[in-house]
């Protein structure tokens, strides 16, 4: 088998991992990294590979699990998005000191833009802080290539290696050859050495010394040396240094405009090769194109000759689009550039799907506590902000601790607003539990609504620990959310389906009253994500709602307060209309109209 496939960057990464003998891969989903582990699973099945693939409860657990495999001499990898690396920062920092036996790759996918993230942080800066080498691919094909180089580098110096793709690598597709993988398995062989693997601070100093020595050698490592990708090395005048997707864009533009400037691609932004730094000293002016911060730029010796992110020549904010690359290269080279006329229109805001059970939950929360403060979390349900039922979103798991913080902040006020917190099932497992325990001990008066749709929806429906299935789709032990909540010490736990809106609102009101005197009340909103449901099942449960034309006066209450994409105002009739292509027949809107104009078909 040797066929061309149109392969997603994340699939190419997975292929690169497996082709180079990766035996354990762990991950927590997060855009743009999520498809890496799913692709590991598909390749494992397709090519019948005996490897371990695991969705972990969070990035820290994923990291530590995969790291232990590398301590035991296997080639392993962990994958996450950039903010996930914050969660895994603790094991990252320590593991770099301790090092590895088998090759260990830390894949952290950055999201310049940001398209689907809280920040535009640059994982390569985290690599500088943790002192591990980082590789920066420019395309799916190069991501696969660098996975192999990274494993060799990792084993040559017994050090974890970071691979940092960005959204445009992860979510681009490229036609490339995919060959059958023949894997030679290694046996796990952990060599006990407490002085290293369980080093006390005194030994850590020694490890730090050794780490610095490793980095010096890595800054001279042949396979990751910067590559001259265009023009000829001149040793004077101008040079352009590129990395990541900016390298791919710059190559197209240099070729198209036939510019005679040497272009060097850095594939290992940290540590930057010493010889390269010396070589760059010969040029009078150097343009550095990289995302998202000036990591290469800050390592170049003479800052006065460098133009990049840190000098303000390139915007430190937002994605480095090819048109920006073209404009900046032209400005640098002193070439004419005609900017095309662009009229940007405000885009449609993303919204919860028609029939999404979260919409019913949010609507109910607004009804139960119209003047409440609503802390929330990361996931599809962040879109509850469209319904005015999400006031804060900070990071994974923060909603619960912030709910506590708000009640404490308001404690001495004359009036205390009710505080409701929403968190998805996957996020609750990821980092909601410690915060919840804390609220029990402090008797924090707030209501936690766990939006349990049985999946990690936003990132593409990965299982949660409650799903009862693992990364490969095989059945595994399911962890029970109510039991965890009870185990945390919460005494008010109610489970209900938000589709039954009136009853659900009543439960929330009951929880609100309870928590004032007794501390946290937890309501678990159970309804599966519709995108995960069987079509036939959906069809069977379809309840048709129609607009009673005699009653609807087109007030628009349902459209603005429930904001279901299937509901719209017909400008001709000045009445509400239901889009049959979008409506999922959840019938929740029949509870929403204040005039009862939205009715079940057979009840009209």
């Amino acid at each position, binding site marked *: 088998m040797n066929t061309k496939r149109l392969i997603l960057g994340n699939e190419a990464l997975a292929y690169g991992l497996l082709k180079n003998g990766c035996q354990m891969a762990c991950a927590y989903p997060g855009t743009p990294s999520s498809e890496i582990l799913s692709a590991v699973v598909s390749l494992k099945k397709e090519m019948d590979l005996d490897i371990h693939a695991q969705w972990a409860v969070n990035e820290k657990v994923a990291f530590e699990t995969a790291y232990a495999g590398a301590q035991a001499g296997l080639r392993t990898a962990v994958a996450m998005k950039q903010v996930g690396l914050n969660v895994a920062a603790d094991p990252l920092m320590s593991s770099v000191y301790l090092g590895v036996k088998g090759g260990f790759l830390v894949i952290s996918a950055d999201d310049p833009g940001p398209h689907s993230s809280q920040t535009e942080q640059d994982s390569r800066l985290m690599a500088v802080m943790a002192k591990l080498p980082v590789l920066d691919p420019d395309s799916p094909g190069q991501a696969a290539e660098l996975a192999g180089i990274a494993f060799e580098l990792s084993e040559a110096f017994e050090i974890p290696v970071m691979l940092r793709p960005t959204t445009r690598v992860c979510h681009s*597709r490229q036609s490339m050859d995919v060959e059958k993988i023949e894997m030679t398995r290694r046996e796990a062989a952990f060599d006990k050495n407490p002085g290293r693997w369980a080093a006390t601070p005194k030994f850590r100093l020694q490890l730090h010394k050794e780490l610095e020595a490793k980095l010096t050698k890595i800054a001279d490592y042949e396979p990751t040396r910067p590559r001259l990708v265009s023009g000829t090395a001149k040793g004077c005048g101008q040079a352009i240094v590129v990395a990541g997707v900016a390298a791919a864009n710059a190559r197209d533009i240099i070729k198209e405009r036939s510019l005679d400037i040497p272009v060097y691609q850095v594939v290992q932004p940290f540590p930057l090769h010493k010889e390269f730094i010396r070589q760059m000293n010969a040029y009078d002016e150097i343009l550095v194109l990289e995302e998202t911060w000036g990591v290469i730029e800050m390592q170049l010796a003479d800052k006065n000759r460098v133009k990049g992110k840190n000098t303000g020549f390139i915007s430190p904010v937002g994605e480095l689009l*090819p048109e920006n690359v073209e404009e900046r290269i032209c400005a640098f080279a002193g070439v004419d550039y005609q900017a095309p006329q662009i009229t940007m229109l405000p885009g449609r805001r993303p919204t919860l799907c028609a029939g999404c059970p979260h919409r019913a939950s949010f609507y109910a929360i607004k009804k139960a506590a119209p003047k409440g403060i609503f802390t929330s979390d990361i996931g599809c349900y962040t879109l509850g902000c469209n319904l005015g039922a999400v006031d804060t979103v900070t990071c994974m798991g923060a909603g619960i601790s912030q709910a506590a913080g708000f009640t404490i902040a308001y404690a001495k006020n004359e009036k205390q607003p009710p505080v409701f917190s929403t968190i998805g099932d996957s996020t609750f497992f990821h980092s909601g539990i410690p915060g919840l325990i804390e609220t029990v001990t402090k008797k924090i008066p707030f209501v936690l609504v766990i939006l349990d749709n049985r999946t990690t929806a936003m990132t593409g429906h990965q299982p949660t620990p409650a799903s009862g299935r693992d990364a490969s789709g095989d059945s595994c032990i399911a962890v029970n959310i109510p039991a965890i909540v009870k185990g945390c010490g919460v005494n008010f736990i109610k489970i209900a389906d938000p589709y039954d809106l009136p009853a659900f609102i009543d439960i929330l009101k009951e929880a609100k009253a309870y928590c004032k005197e007794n501390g946290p009340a937890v309501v678990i909103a159970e309804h599966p994500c519709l995108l995960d449901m069987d079509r036939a099942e959906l069809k069977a449960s379809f309840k048709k709602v129609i607009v009673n034309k005699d009653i609807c006066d087109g007030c628009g209450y349902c459209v603005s307060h429930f904001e279901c994409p299937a509901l719209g105002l017909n400008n001709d009739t000045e009445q509400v209309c239901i889009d049959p292509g979008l409506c999922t027949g959840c019938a929740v809107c029949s509870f929403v109209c204040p005039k009862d104009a939205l009715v079940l078909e057979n009840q009209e």
Partner: protein
Amino acid sequence: MSNNQQIIISGLGGQGVLFITKLLAGAAMADNLPVLTSETHGMAQRGGNVISYLKIGEFSGPLIRPATADALIALKPESFAHHSYFLKPGGLAVVNSPNPVEDDRYRVCCGDATALAEKAGNVRSENVAMLGFFLGAMKNDTHIFSPDSLARMIKEKFQAKPAVAENVLNLLGSGMQLFEKR
């Protein structure tokens, strides 16, 4: 006729932008041409404006610069308003719209793919109808997107569901006819 093609596919999350991007990419790969695409994932897929970039030929970067695209497939009239700036002057835009869309900077062709899909009893397949419409419009611009190779891929993709394959192929055909009958 050029083998280098840069095409934008624009629509709303859930409309099947990725599906037609993959089909067009597959057609180019059947001709042994290098292909790069770039797509929207994550939150924007929840009903927001989504865009796919398809580049065929000798390119390194996955994105398309404004005013350089050869063609735009707009699955909604608003998709044209949002993303027509990617088109080069005189570039081809096919727009899923019951009403004509005027813009003298480009070659704009409108067709009501939604109505076609509704008539076929499959409102969610307007993307396929629009793909057919695009094939009709591109016929004289390039040989890359041959209806035969697209049909082959569709049959392969829905191997297990021949009824679905037939439905999709019919819609593709009626999309092409819709262009001819304009």
